[in-house]
């Protein structure tokens, strides 16, 4: 798939004085405590210049489990655009340019187009949500994300009733991302959700973690976080969101089953290992390892070895999305 030129046109750039004023306004309001960022109608979220977000409303659903140290969460990453080693992203992602940034919105929606990140964030109130993150490789973390519900963003694009799936594309720029020289994945990195999953209140658009701006290696400036699925579903550094009525190809089905024009990144890599849904499920083993146990990276030694929970412990919130579905077959 070829990617369109996503450079921002001069006409789309917010004039510098307007943009600076806005920041001053927000900073001033925050200093005076006028912008607690917690009220549903509080507005003007932005990437803070100093790198730290102001007071963030703690989210009621946050897990109280011990958080992974920021140092671990930002030095042990899978972000193949910067290399396949766990420490490659932390080592090489400083070449990623996260500002200016824009997201192209395409497909089955009424308000498609290219939006500057500033404009994307503006109307939303940022909150801090502590989620479990379960990697398919059998390790897990607990991360305090800074973000807002993805649904609130997607609704602004006015998806049509024909929008059954939402695709999230990660940046694929060879100049910034040395890992793209390898053809281990079919770049650009593409992940996708059903519209119901994408609109679920747990699905987060994250711009920070640990009260700070996202480190590049964690998917700056904006990424997806879907806490009940294996980590690779949560696409990083999103440059394109597309609403589609066509279902994804799933490698394990026969070629004659048509109706698809796209396939998610890891399903393309190995369909029997990484399905489209990729819900955390201890009952469905990866072909090469059991998924019943996980190593919780929490800064201690030895790290706790804990029992993996169905939907990563979010069954109460999300199980209804999959009612009557064979979760082994539709893994």
């Amino acid at each position: 798939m070829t990617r369109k030129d996503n450079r921002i046109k001069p006409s789309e750039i917010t004039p510098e004085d307007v943009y600076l004023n806005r920041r001053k306004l927000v900073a001033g309001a925050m200093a005076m405590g006028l912008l607690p960022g917690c009220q549903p109608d509080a507005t003007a979220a932005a990437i803070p210049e100093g790198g730290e977000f102001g007071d963030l409303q703690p989210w009621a659903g946050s897990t109280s489990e011990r958080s992974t140290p920021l140092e671990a969460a930002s030095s042990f990453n899978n972000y193949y655009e910067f290399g396949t080693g766990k420490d490659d992203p932390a080592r090489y992602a400083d070449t990623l340019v996260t500002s200016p940034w824009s997201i192209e919105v395409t497909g089955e929606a009424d308000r498609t187009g290219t939006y500057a990140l500033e404009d994307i964030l503006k109307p939303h109130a940022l909150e801090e949500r502590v989620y479990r993150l379960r990697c398919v490789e059998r390790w897990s973390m607990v991360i305090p994300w800074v973000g807002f519900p993805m649904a609130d963003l997607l609704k602004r694009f006015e998806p049509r009733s024909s929008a059954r799936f939402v695709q999230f594309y990660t940046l694929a720029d060879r100049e910034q991302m040395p890992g793209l020289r390898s053809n281990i994945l079919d770049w650009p990195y593409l992940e996708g959700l059903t519209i119901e999953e994408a609109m679920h209140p747990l699905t987060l658009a994250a711009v920070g973690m640990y009260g700070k701006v996202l480190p590049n290696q964690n998917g700056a400036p904006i990424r997806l976080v879907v806490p009940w699925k294996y980590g690779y579903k949560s696409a990083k550094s999103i440059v394109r969101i597309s609403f589609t009525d066509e279902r994804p190809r799933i490698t394990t089905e026969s070629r004659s089953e048509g109706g698809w024009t796209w396939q998610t990144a890891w399903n393309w890599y190995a369909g029997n290992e990484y399905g489209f849904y990729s819900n955390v499920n201890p009952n469905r083993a990866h072909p090469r390892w059991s998924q019943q146990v996980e190593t919780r990276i929490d800064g201690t030694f030895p790290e706790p070895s804990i029992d993996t929970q169905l939907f990563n412990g979010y069954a109460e919130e999300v199980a209804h999305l999959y009612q009557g579905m064979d979760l082994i077959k539709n893994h």
Partner: protein
Amino acid sequence: MQRWQLGLIKAVVWAACLAPLAWLYLRIFHQIGGYVASPSIEILHTIGKTGLNLLLITLAVTPLRVLTGLNWLVRLRRLFGLFSFFYLSLHFSAFVWLDLGFRWRIIFAEIVLRPYLTIGMLALLLLIPLAVTSTRSMQRRLGRRWAQLHRLIYAIAILGVWHFWWHGKQTSNEPVVYAGILALLLGFRIWRGWQRRQRRQASG
């Protein structure tokens, strides 16, 4: 070679073989040489790879001895072999303890169900008789059969590299390098065996 010279060399080998363990300790507990995000995963992988390295070094002793004429090298072979066994036993312990938290039902099922674990386990089990019979007195007692038994090391090395090859996503070419080195080491034996046969035919 003098006795003290060999003693000195052995001391260096001991230190070199223990160094990966010390290095791991310093990195994990004193953050020397970089931060380790996940000690468990780091230990499991580093120790397993060290064990495999030592296994290949053990197999490299004879070719090196033949090529360089340094016959005393053979007196280090047992040390390398036993250190390899030591690290691979630690690797298995890390799998049982750090990776799966002593969940024996899952551990047993995993070893049976996942071919890469089955062959890794088999390699470790096959190493046990070699370690047990590594003493000089056992060597004397077993005579000819000792050499036959210790040829198992070739199968063990193949299983070990195979286990490494299969263990994860194929994102690195490291296993290919290991397989290449193993092929060279085993190829040397085949070549020598063939040479010996040629000589025997010529003289017979």
